[in-house]
């Protein structure tokens, strides 16, 4: 039988005409803080809830953000037939972005891996010392795509750290820009294997 449109017969799922646009908002919280849903009734671990001890920090004015992963992939090469398969392992997931909102230091210190801040009004001190490699965060990155009804997608990363070297550009007549920030999500062995790095979720009552 001829396929007039080229559509395969049988059950076919097409994608939706909903387009996500722009950067999500990025929130981070100390890894020691329990997640908001830990787990929820469906056994998924996600969400942040701020406390006096463990504030949730909103990362301000993001630009050039992207979400990617680090992967080890090795082809199964048979010398007589060629590559029969590729074995893959996820090493990490990673958010890369720049920020233009650099204050207060009490938030910036985490993004640039500086030391604990001290405030003695009207001064806030941010010491630059060795990097604390034991400092991890949860990250929650929601993107609302329908403000009217609150439909959103979100990326939850269970255990992240800010890695790699950053650069703060200080151009004349333009805002400072901290570039090269990388928030790397590691495997969290305290989580179920299927959610080891985190999860993405979508809330949309009209279709789900």
């Amino acid at each position, binding site marked *: 039988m001829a396929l007039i449109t080229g559509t395969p017969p049988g059950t076919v799922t097409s994608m939706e005409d909903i387009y996500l646009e722009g950067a999500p908002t990025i929130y981070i919280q100390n890894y020691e803080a329990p997640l908001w849903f830990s787990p929820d009734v469906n056994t998924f671990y996600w969400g942040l809830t701020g*406390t*006096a001890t463990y504030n949730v*920090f909103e990362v301000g004015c993001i630009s050039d953000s992207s979400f990617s992963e680090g992967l080890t992939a090795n082809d199964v090469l048979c010398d007589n037939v060629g590559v029969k398969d590729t074995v893959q392992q996820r090493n990490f997931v990673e958010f890369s972005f720049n920020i233009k909102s650099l204050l*207060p230091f*009490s*938030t910036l210190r985490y993004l640039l891996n500086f030391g604990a*801040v*001290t*405030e003695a009004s009207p001064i806030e001190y941010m010491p630059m010392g060795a990097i604390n490699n034991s400092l991890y965060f949860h990250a929650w990155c929601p993107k609302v795509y329908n403000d009217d009804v609150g439909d959103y997608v979100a990326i939850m990363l269970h255990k992240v750290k800010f890695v790699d070297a950053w650069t703060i550009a200080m151009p004349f007549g333009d805002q400072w820009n901290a570039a090269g920030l990388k928030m790397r999500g590691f495997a969290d062995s305290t989580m179920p294997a299927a959610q080891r790095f985190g999860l993405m979720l979508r809330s949309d009552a009209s279709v789900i």
Partner: protein
Amino acid sequence: MEKRDFTVRNSIVEEDDDKEVIIEEERVKLEPPASVRLKSQYPGTVIVTGSVTGNRYVFSGAGSELEVNSNDAPKMLEKRFGGNSCCGSGVKPTPHFIVI
């Protein structure tokens, strides 16, 4: 039946036939507590000099608690950190301290 006069605290209005007699009682003076316990929400050390007493308060980090002279507390409770959200999330500046 006894009725209370709402304009005078701790008073009792006695109805004596046609005439009302207001009997004044001793007013209760509420003393503010000498100190209040504040918890820091600021993610770092905060050093505050009391605006009234000049006392020096050192909060060692988020979640740390101190007894603060009640005269110094109001000014401390006004302190905020962080800005209004730049990205539409509606996050407001966070109070440095909360009363516990």
